[in-house]
């Protein structure tokens, strides 16, 4: 798991509770991997409550990974979508000029800012945090900051992971300016390997064709940014 590529995920089994798709987080110790879990519903809470020594099951890694360009890069992440962004940072080249945008609702939901700065310490870089309520960093939606940046800078590659609306706007902004952009999508996952179909977005299967898709491709996908499917497979609006 320690050699997982950015964008790939694992299926994490919390015995007796559930099994969830999780991005694979970088770990301090080399040769190891980690997960970053956000306590949300019963399953993630179950994972959150796992005690040291208790066994969980991990299968994977599954899915494709980001196509990392060189030069001026922009990473846009929100929530646990920052996890693959952090892993991406471990793959950049020494001369890349990297901008990391971290979006959060509020101050207490901001994380990984220090980690990002640390991972980038040998690169020209800046880490910008936005909060919707302005309690930390720049005030406003992270996508307003994206708009501002793409108007100023001709990025060689833009990468995003996080809430779908954020990714949707980021892809639109980048794509309309002809910039290379990729997003890592999240959908309901059961098998993780292209059998069950629960992760479909239009004709794409996130677990198998993704999680990373090119902006070019996403722009023509009728479901991206608009719908996701629930456990029964019914389309729901975002």
């Amino acid at each position, binding site marked *: 798991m320690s050699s997982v590529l950015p964008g790939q995920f694992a*299926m994490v*089994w919390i*015995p*007796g*509770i*559930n*099994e*969830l798709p999780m991005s694979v987080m970088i770990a301090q110790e080399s040769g190891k991997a980690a997960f970053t879990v956000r306590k949300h519903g019963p*399953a993630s809470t179950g994972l959150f409550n796992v005690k040291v020594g208790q*066994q969980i*099951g991990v*299968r994977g890694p599954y899915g494709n990974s980001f196509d990392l360009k060189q030069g001026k890069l922009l990473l846009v992440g929100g929530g646990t979508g920052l996890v693959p962004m952090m892993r991406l940072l471990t793959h950049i080249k020494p001369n890349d000029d990297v901008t990391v945008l971290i979006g959060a609702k509020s101050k207490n939901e901001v994380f990984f800012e220090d980690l990002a700065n640390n991972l980038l310490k040998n690169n020209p870089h800046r880490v910008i945090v936005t909060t919707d309520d302005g309690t930390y960093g720049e005030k406003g939606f992270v996508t307003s900051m994206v708009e501002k940046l793409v108007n100023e800078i001709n990025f060689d590659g833009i990468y995003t992971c996080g809430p779908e609306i954020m990714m949707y706007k980021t892809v639109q902004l980048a794509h309309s300016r002809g910039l290379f952009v990729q997003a890592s999508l999240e959908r309901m996952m*059961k*098998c*993780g*390997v*292209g*059998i*069950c*179909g*629960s992760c*479909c977005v*239009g*004709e794409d*299967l996130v677990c*198998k064709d993704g999680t990373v898709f090119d902006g070019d491709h996403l722009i023509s996908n*009728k479901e991206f940014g608009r719908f996701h*499917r*629930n*456990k*029964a*497979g*019914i*389309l729901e609006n975002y």
Partner: protein
Amino acid sequence: MEPSLVTSIGKIQLERPVMLASGILGISLDVFNRLYRSGAGAVVSKSLSTEPWDGYPNPTIFGINGGGWINAVGLSNPGAPNFAKMIEPNKDVPIIISLVGSIPEDFSTMVEQFKNSKVIAYELNLSCPHVAKVGLEVGDDPELVKKIVSTVKNSTNVPVIAKVGLGTTHYLNTVSAAIDSGIDAITAINTIRAIAIDVETQRPILSNKFGGLSGTPIKPIALRCVYEISSKYDIPIIGCGGISTWEDALEFILAGASAIQIGSAIGDNWIHVFNDINKGILQYMKRKGYSKIDEMIGLAKKS
């Protein structure tokens, strides 16, 4: 002359003999289109119920080291009405609608809901091994099967297929009951009831404990069923279970199947499997001098 892959399952005619099995990638019309473009002769929907079902919590699918899968998805599905609405725009794809239910009326209600959809056949799932009151619990009761098949046959002119599996009674009795009631074809087989236990945590892996075994492990058993059905009854058969190569597909055709379905192999080799099998069958036909699929159906029973 190039041999033809066209095959007839009774009144159902397909351009190619390899179709998508029910429950595999089967909830979205866009995906159906894609699979059709990548070589599937038809696609079978996820088994639909009258109401939407969430299915079981994860883990719902477990990949066996060395081959095969065990799943207990729990027949999660958006429900027949939602599904019917979703496939309304369909023009091109030969779609077979799989239905699951407990009583005859469940099935006839759903058939009614698809009246205005382009559906080439219905497949009655009489064989899901891991959901109570539907699937095998229905298929294991030949009297109930008779009622369901008659009811559905009376509600539609579209061909109706019964999908059977290995349950607690003899599956050939289910086949026979379905034939007596006018079924148009048989799909054999569904997954086989199974379990997997994690020795570290000492518990069944799937949230439902029991699931259905699919993929390469069940191929010789599925093939046996096709051979047995075709030896005993004069009914078109769709072979299903563990097919992943063109040789597998041909084994089923030689055993008496008019067409075949692919499920788990997609998890193993992704959707290229359709065209790989189509190509392999074509090459075999050329090499052996066959011009139509029909010429090969059931040949292994002659020896």
